[in-house]
């Protein structure tokens, strides 16, 4: 590959620079800081990418602008035309575009392939030479390094084999060692063996499960058999216990059966009760009869003590008793009448007081005639008094009216107006009327005059304007003439103007207005007259009012005269009435005297007094009637008393006025009581006698019945009868008991035979049997318990095994570890495989490629040293060279320049050896500073003539032997 030209857009401090390098050998000269290193870096970057962070190199992005990158134009040996490689800023390593000659564009992949996957580092270490690299050849050019470079040929990537191998080795050692302990796999193996062991144990343990299951079923079977036997024994024991329990009953049953084996005993139904009932009954009857006989005797005694009363006496007494209310009534009547008389006397006395009587006057006339005459008088008197009062009132009225009228008249006389003043007033009114008429006239005349005046003024204005116009024109003409020195004409016209003006002034004098002023004067005169009248007289009143006042005065005077006449008449009528009144009063006084009443009594009460007198008379009559009645009653009472005294004398009784009736009453009641007591006793005696008869009859009947009962059992007496009764009862009790036992035993399943048989046994025998059975049961029970315990153990063991998931867990662990081992092994094997491959590869290279390279190096070294050194050898100690005199030298023993020569020779031979893989330009960065002129010439010649690849030689010492067309001078320092 040959670089034809460089086009730097911007890289480091170089911007927009273009270099043509289309030569096989190019010397690029520049002073320090001219940009030589930048340019080398640029070439590397364009071909292999901009420096990344990992690399030690600066990225050289321009500081001043944004263009980063550039373009290389190169010529590949297998491409028909030049190819442009452009790399600009983009991703970290820059974006690449390849422009082929035929116009197609390719990507970076194409370039990488084209460069045969060489990377930047490898390129630098093979194709770039600098002064530092030349100095330590023994370090940089060891056999390993050489191999390394050889190995890298054709591969991509930057790692070194030994680095890889050592990493792999370390890793492998940590994973597995055949007899190790610590590596992972070995540890896992250790652990998995442990797990395996445990699994084996547990598996054996689980094998036991089957035997356990067998045991379980066996034990269960025997257990069931034993349980059955136990159950049977239990039933037998229960039977025995029952027999023991009922043994006494069975015995009793047996004895009863024997007892009842006789003829049945007879006895009347309810025999004892019936006999005893009858016995009691007859005893009771005997007692009753005794009691009744006793009572009968006492009653008979009692009745003999009572005597019956006489019937006539009783009748007489009853008659007296009947009259009691009548007598009592009469006595009360007497008392009442006496009280009435007293009351009436009191009333009379009171009434006398009312009318002023000291005593009663029976002869006073109180007839209706007197009464009516009094009433008439009274009415007349009332009438007279009323009329009198009316008249007095009227008189008073008239007197006050007359007084009022006098006052009015006086007032009216004061307000009258004089005759003189009335006259003046009339004259004033006339004058004022005249004035009004004249003013009206004056106004009409004034109006006509004003209209006329306006017409005249109009005409006059027209005239004066015309005259002023003429006079002005005349004046102007006059002035004109005066100015034009025409004095004559000027004077004429000026005079005309002045004259006309004067004329106008004269005609405009004021006209006289004589008519108007005359009228005005007249009016003023009238007004003056009116004013003077007003001033001299008081005329401030209405003439009509004055007239009315006069009329009023006249009417009031007439009224006063008529009132005075009326008053006189009234006074006369009043005196007549007073006389009539006096005569009436005298008549009434006479009446009072006749009635013998107090004369001071008022007239209006006279009628009432008459009524009172009448009442007194009436009451006196009533008193007389009452007194007569009292006398009659008292007579009757006396009669009754004598009668009764006669009647009771025969009956051994005293008469007392106050207690007679009470005595009679008590005697009567005693008589009645005695009578009724007697009758009652008599009845009781009869009843008792009957009862006694009935009881005796019944007693005989019960005696017969008792006899019948005795006959039924063929008993002689009561003792025997009771013996038979007891016998019968005993028999029946036994039967009941026997029946009860039979049912009880039947229910407990004891049949007839077993009963008979058991009755023969003794209780102690039975108990012994039961005990035997019990011990047997206990034995069985303990056996069963034992077996159950064993079964439970087996069951728990089975459950333990069933619930134990340990084996499964261990199996999981085992698999897990197995997986781990497999994984680790795989890792180990894969790495081991890689290791083996690498080692094989290295060996192959050592054997095949290295001798060729060394032979080439030898030939180059011999050539550039002009035959002074004839061989290059690699042995265990490293590189050695053989001098033409046969001596071997280590590079450290060589001179500096020879050493550098050796290095260059080796590198060039390497490049030659790798020619099949890479054909790239060599970049030499001032590598030959230690060479003298001759050596430099030799190496330069060699580079220029022998090396087939393009060489870019960067230097700060211009080699003038190189043609200028192969030289580029970086003259200016790039900013």
């Amino acid at each position, binding site marked *: 590959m040959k670089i034809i030209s460089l086009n730097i857009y911007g890289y480091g401090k170089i911007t927009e620079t273009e270099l043509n390098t289309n030569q096989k050998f190019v010397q690029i000269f520049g002073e320090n800081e001219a940009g030589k290193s930048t340019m080398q870096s640029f070439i590397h970057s364009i071909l292999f990418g901009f420096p990344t962070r990992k690399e030690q190199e600066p990225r050289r992005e321009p500081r001043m602008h944004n263009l980063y990158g550039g373009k290389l134009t190169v010529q590949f040996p297998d491409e028909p035309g030049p190819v442009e490689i452009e790399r600009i800023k983009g991703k970290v390593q820059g974006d690449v575009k390849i422009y082929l000659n035929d116009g197609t564009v390719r990507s970076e992949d194409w370039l990488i392939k084209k460069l045969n996957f060489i990377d930047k580092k490898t390129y630098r270490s093979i194709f770039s030479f600098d002064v530092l690299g030349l100095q330590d050849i023994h370090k940089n050019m060891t056999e390993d390094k050489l191999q390394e470079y050889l*190995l890298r040929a054709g591969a991509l*990537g930057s790692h070194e084999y030994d*680095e890889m191998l050592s*990493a792999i080795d370390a*890793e492998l050692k940590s994973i597995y060692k055949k007899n190790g302990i610590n590596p992972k796999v070995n540890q896992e193996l250790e652990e998995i063996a442990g797990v395996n062991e445990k699994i084996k144990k547990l598996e054996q343990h689980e094998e036991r499960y*089957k035997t356990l299951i067998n045991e379980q079923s066996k034990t269960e079977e025997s257990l069931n058999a034993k349980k059955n036997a136990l159950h049977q024994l239990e039933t037998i024991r229960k039977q025995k216990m029952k027999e023991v329990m009922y043994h006494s009953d069975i015995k009793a049953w047996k004895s009863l059966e024997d007892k009842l084996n006789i003829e049945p005993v007879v006895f009347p139904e309810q025999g004892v009760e019936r006999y005893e009932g009858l016995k009691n009954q007859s005893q009771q009857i005997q007692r009753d009869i005794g009691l009744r006989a006793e009572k009968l005797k006492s009653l008979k005694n009692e009745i003999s003590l009572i005597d019956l009363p006489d019937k006539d006496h009783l009748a007489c007494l009853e008659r007296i008793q009947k009259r009691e209310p009548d007598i009592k009534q009469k006595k009360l009547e007497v008392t009442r009448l006496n009280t009435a008389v007293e009351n009436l006397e009191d009333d009379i006395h009171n009434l006398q007081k009312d009318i002023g009587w000291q005593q009663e006057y029976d002869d006073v006339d109180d007839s209706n005639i007197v009464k009516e005459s009094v009433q008439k008088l009274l009415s007349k008197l009332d009438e007279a008094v009323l009329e009198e009062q009316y008249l007095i009132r009227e008189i008073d009225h008239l007197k006050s009216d007359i007084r009022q009228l006098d006052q009015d008249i006086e007032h009216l006389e004061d307000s009258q107006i004089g005759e003189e003043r009335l006259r003046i007033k009339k004259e004033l009114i006339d004058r004022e009327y005249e004035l009004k008429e004249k003013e009206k006239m004056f106004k009409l005349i004034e109006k006509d005059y004003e209209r006329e005046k306006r017409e005249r003024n109009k005409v006059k204005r027209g005239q004066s304007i015309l005259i002023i116009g003429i006079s002005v024109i005349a004046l102007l003409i006059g002035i004109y003439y005066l100015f034009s020195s025409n004095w004559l004409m000027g004077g004429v016209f000026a005079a005309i103007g002045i004259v006309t003006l004067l004329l106008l002034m004269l005609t405009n004098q004021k006209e006289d207005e004589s008519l108007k002023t005359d009228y005005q004067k007249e009016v003023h005169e009238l007004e003056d007259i009116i004013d003077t009248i007003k001033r001299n007289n008081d005329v401030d009143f209405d003439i009509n009012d004055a007239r009315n006042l006069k009329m009023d005065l006249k009417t009031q005077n007439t009224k006063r005269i008529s009132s005075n006449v009326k008053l006189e008449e009234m006074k006369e009528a009043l005196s007549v009435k007073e006389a009539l009144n006096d005569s009436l009063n005298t008549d009434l006084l006479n009446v009072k005297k006749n009635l013998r009443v107090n004369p001071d009594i008022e007239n209006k009460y006279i009628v009432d007094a008459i009524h009172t007198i009448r009442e007194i008379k009436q009451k006196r009559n009533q008193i007389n009637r009452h007194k007569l009645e009292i006398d009659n009653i008292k007579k009757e009472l006396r009669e009754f008393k004598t009668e009764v005294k006669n009647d009771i004398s025969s009956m051994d009784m005293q008469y007392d006025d106050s207690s007679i009736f009470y005595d009679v009453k008590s005697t009567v009641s005693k008589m009645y009581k005695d009578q009724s007591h007697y009758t009652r006793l008599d009845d009781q005696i009869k009843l008792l006698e009957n009862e006694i008869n009935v009881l005796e009859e019944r007693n005989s009947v019960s005696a017969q019945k008792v006899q019948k009962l005795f006959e039924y059992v063929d008993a002689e007496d009561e003792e025997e009868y009771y013996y038979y009764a007891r016998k019968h009862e005993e028999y029946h009790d036994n039967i009941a008991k026997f029946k009860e036992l039979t049912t009880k035993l039947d229910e407990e399943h004891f049949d007839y035979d077993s009963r008979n048989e058991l009755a023969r046994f003794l209780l102690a025998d039975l108990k012994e049997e039961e005990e035997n059975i019990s011990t047997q049961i206990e034995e069985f029970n303990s056996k069963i318990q034992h077996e159950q315990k064993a079964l439970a153990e087996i069951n728990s063991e089975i459950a333990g095994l069933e619930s134990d998931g340990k084996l499964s867990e261990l199996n999981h662990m085992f698999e897990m570890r197995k997986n781990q081992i497999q994984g680790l092994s*795989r890792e180990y094997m894969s790495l081991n*495989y890689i290791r083996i491959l690498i080692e094989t590869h290295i060996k192959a290279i050592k054997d095949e490629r290295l001798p060729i390279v060394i032979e080439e190096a030898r030939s180059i070294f011999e050539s550039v040293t002009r035959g002074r050194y004839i061989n290059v050898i690699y042995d265990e100690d490293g590189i050695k060279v053989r001098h033409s005199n046969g001596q071997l030298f280590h590079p450290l023993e060589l001179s500096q320049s020879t050493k550098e020569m050796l290095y260059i020779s080796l590198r060039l031979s390497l490049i030659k050896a790798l020619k099949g893989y890479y054909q790239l330009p060599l970049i030499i960065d001032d590598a030959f500073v230690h060479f003298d002129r001759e050596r430099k010439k030799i190496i330069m010649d060699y580079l220029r003539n022998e090396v087939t690849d393009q060489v870019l030689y960067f230097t700060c010492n211009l080699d003038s032997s190189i043609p200028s067309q192969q030289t580029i001078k970086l003259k200016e320092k790039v900013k």
Partner: protein
Amino acid sequence: MVKFIHCADLHLDSPFKSRTRMPGGILNALMDSTYKSVERMIDFAIENKVDFIVIAGDVFDRANRTLKSEIFMKRQFGRLKENGIFAYVIHGNHDPLTDGFKTVWPDNVTVFKENVETYEMISSKGERIFLHGFSYFLDDSYENKLDGYPVNTMNEGIHIGLLHGTYSKGSYRQERYTEFNLETLNQKLYHYWALGHIHQREQLSDLPPIQYSGNIQGRHKNEYGEKGFIYVKGDDVYLDTKFIPVQDIMFSEYTLDVSSLNKQDLYQSIVEFKHRLREKGKQIIQLTLYHDGDEIISEPDFNEVIELLKEDERDLKDFVWIDNLHLKYMNQDSIALLNDIKASYSSNDTLFKEAVNSMYMDPRLNRYLLPIQELEQEDLLDEGEERLKMLMRK
């Protein structure tokens, strides 16, 4: 209408294959997961009142056939019995008849013997159902017993075939026991074929339904996705099938793009990712991270992140356990000088054997390793390169 459940490959208590060490909680969840999924299936059967369930082999796992699993199964069968549900079981290569039972099943369970047998049952609705099948006597069967299945000539009732075997056209990793083809099965004129042995659910035919129900709980990363049983409903004309997932722990694979390889950022983005997954229940996942930048992360840092992530899941109920965390750099092809080596020597078997023999020649170790023929040279090379890249990034 008849209702039944078809399941297979319960692999009760089967050990899980994981390369990481797990904390106790997750380990316990893993160990319980097969049990839990079976319990869920039984719950479903009881709840939906199915007539019977069919288990097409491999109830137990050869690697962990313990008493625990048998007692568990006995109890579950007991639950079915209480609810009047029958169970028909054939044994497969993982639990052949000869391995023997330590316990006795309840009487609602019917186990097919080593020769083809037919059982008849009457469903709750009165349909007659005929079940045909056989169990493996030893851990593999010597002869193909398909000819022993009777042909349905009666045209009466519903016929169901139970078979533990391998579909001849399938490319499964399992051992190829009792290979069959659809033609043979169709010739039997059955209404349903309940297949077992293949752990990946697959419907081989629609009419009649011939399906693998797959296993009921995944056991390693290759058995990913939902796992469960098939719920069949219908009559002699048409049987409707529905897959019901019951797995307790799900295995899945995921990828995640990470923009930053900073230790904290990386950890954070994975935690967020896990948080999104968590609602789907317990999971064990393979996670591949893709980084499209020029950052790198050193191995110690990366391991630290892995440890942190593991620590996070220690006590969680719905854990998301990252079984394998793999980081891929999109931009760095790195050690490509190996390409040269690979190109020159990968075909050299002697070198491969030399690498592998170092371990297989160790008698203490080789018993735990996979059979040597299962190792793929290329896979090993890739893994090694990957591992080396990681090592070189220190």
